[in-house]
């Protein structure tokens, strides 16, 4: 069953510096996200991934088309939709002088819920950082905290916008583990990325966006089978990333 339905979604932005002219950010795209899957949206910068996500999340006005989340229309019922989703934004800071525990408590209150900051932090391996400020966290810890804060309302769908951008490979692997753990609890996860290996490692299905359109949508395996060119020579064993992981140790400390 489709938990997110996107139908003919379109968005234009005014062109910077050119009055009246417009840029098409999202050009009539349609797709479904099935309940319980990890769905990836891939594409180069400026392809329209974030805009698409933000329209689904109710953060940006839907110009044309329709989005339904858990059967609710985002256009007509944005507040109800927000109750059902958790969102980790690409880059967002938090209030400077609130501890992680206080922030989670606050976010819970915004959903009219009482949450247990301890449990949420334990879920992303940040238990010992409960009384730290966000600015005291490393990049990977910040992203994991972002995910914890997106889970305060126990959402049906979790949106992650480029969760591993700017992280080193170890922190990225650790975040993948978290995403898989959340997925194992039955959540539907939608993520954008421009790392191909991330999509391959995590996603059940992948939509590839380019220039405001979806140009391919399938499982990573099928996409590779259909579109990948024949290798000209046999591939080497593993990747440089595997080398890095082996040398620095996969079992990591945060």
């Amino acid at each position, binding site marked *: 069953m489709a938990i997110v339905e996107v139908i003919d979604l379109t968005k234009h932005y005014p062109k910077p510096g050119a009055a009246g002219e417009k840029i098409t950010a999202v050009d009539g795209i349609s797709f479904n996200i099935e309940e319980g899957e990890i769905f990836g949206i891939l594409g180069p910068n400026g392809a329209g991934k974030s805009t698409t996500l*933000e329209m689904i*999340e109710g*953060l*940006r*006005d839907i110009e044309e088309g329709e989005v339904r989340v858990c059967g609710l229309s985002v256009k007509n019922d944005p*507040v*109800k939709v*927000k*109750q059902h989703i958790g*969102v980790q*934004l690409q*880059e*967002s*800071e*938090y*209030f*400077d*002088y*609130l501890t992680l525990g*206080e922030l989670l*408590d*606050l*976010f819970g*209150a*915004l*959903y*009219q819920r009482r949450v247990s900051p301890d449990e949420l932090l334990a879920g992303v391996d940040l238990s010992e950082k409960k009384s730290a400020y966000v600015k005291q966290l490393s990049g990977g810890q910040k992203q994991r905290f972002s995910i914890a804060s*997106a889970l305060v*309302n126990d959402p049906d769908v979790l949106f992650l916008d480029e969760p591993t951008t700017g992280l080193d490979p170890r922190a990225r692997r650790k975040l993948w583990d978290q995403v898989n753990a959340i997925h194992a609890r039955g959540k539907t996860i939608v993520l954008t990325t421009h790392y191909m290996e991330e999509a391959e490692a995590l996603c059940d299905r992948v939509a590839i966006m380019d220039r405001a359109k979806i140009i391919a949508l399938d499982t990573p395996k099928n996409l590779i089978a259909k579109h990948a060119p024949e290798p000209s020579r046999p591939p080497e064993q593993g990747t440089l990333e595997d080398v890095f992981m082996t040398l620095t140790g996969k079992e990591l400390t945060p």
Partner: protein
Amino acid sequence: MIRMIWKLTAAQFLLHWRDRQTIFFSLFFPLLFMVAIGYMADSGFEQVDIAVIEGAETDYNTRLLDAVIANELLDTQVLPETEARTALEAGDLAMVIILPQDDISVAAGETAPLDLLVNAADPQRGLQAQAILDSVLTRLEHELRGTAPLVAPQTQDVLARDLSYMDFLFPGIMAFMIMTLSITGSGFNIVEYKRKGILKRLFVTPLNPLFFIVSLILTRLATILIQIAIVVGIGIFALQVDFVGSPLLILLFVFAGAILFLSIGFMVGGMAKSQQSVGMIGNLVIFPQVFLASVFFPKDALPGWLQGVSSILPLTYLSDAMRGITNQGMGLVELWPQVLGILVWSIIAIALAAYFFRWSDAADA
């Protein structure tokens, strides 16, 4: 819903008090300023420093010296001539009096010569010292010659109580604090939240923007009340500021002023598209008022055409109202021009804030 607003308010309240820089500028800075002024004002008027070089040991010289020393407007030292001249040339003294070496029978009608040295480079203080000396000499003359003074002026203060500069400054500082805390707490804060993506993060949740505004206003009101209470407490107990009016009326104007300047802050926040421009527009609103709005000195001290501008500034209405209450114990009826001014400005600011403020911008971090 109540819990949501409470949590948001409490969170922002914590933010304010945990930020040392904010606390320094919004609380310690005005306090330091007041205490410094308080110490300066403590000495009252400034005494004029003079020195006397002793002359012959005559009855006349002794009485003259005693009279000069006894005068509280003069700070008199008895010095040897060379030292006195050096101090005068250095600008430490306003005048040096050289007592006569001869015995002069003034009581018998002789006129005593008196040599005075003043520094020509500082004629003002010299004249001031001479004027004071003249009054000392006149009194001495009546005493020694047994004559009656021509007039006996009786000075009375127009106000029943005497007002120090501190009494003038104190309500102005309150109004100033209300203005800065309100403007930075509303518009500046929102633009900052927007820039950091905090607003966007908040509106990923089902939070109603109205609740967010309510929490912002509650946070600021609580902060203003606490900081004003601290300032009033220190003013009354440590600096002996006179506070004759109704505390309830002050409270009313604290609220009215906060609403006025919060609205102005939202207006500024709505007009500004970036962090830089909010600082610029904000300072454009704050700075002229600091100097023109009778916070630190009365608007009579301004040139005529500026007085007109000054008298219609929002901060002038607030500080005049505060001053009317603390200094003169005015009531709401007497303060009607101020009430009207604050009301009109509030309506203008709220209308402009509503016009300029767009929540949809929140997503465009």
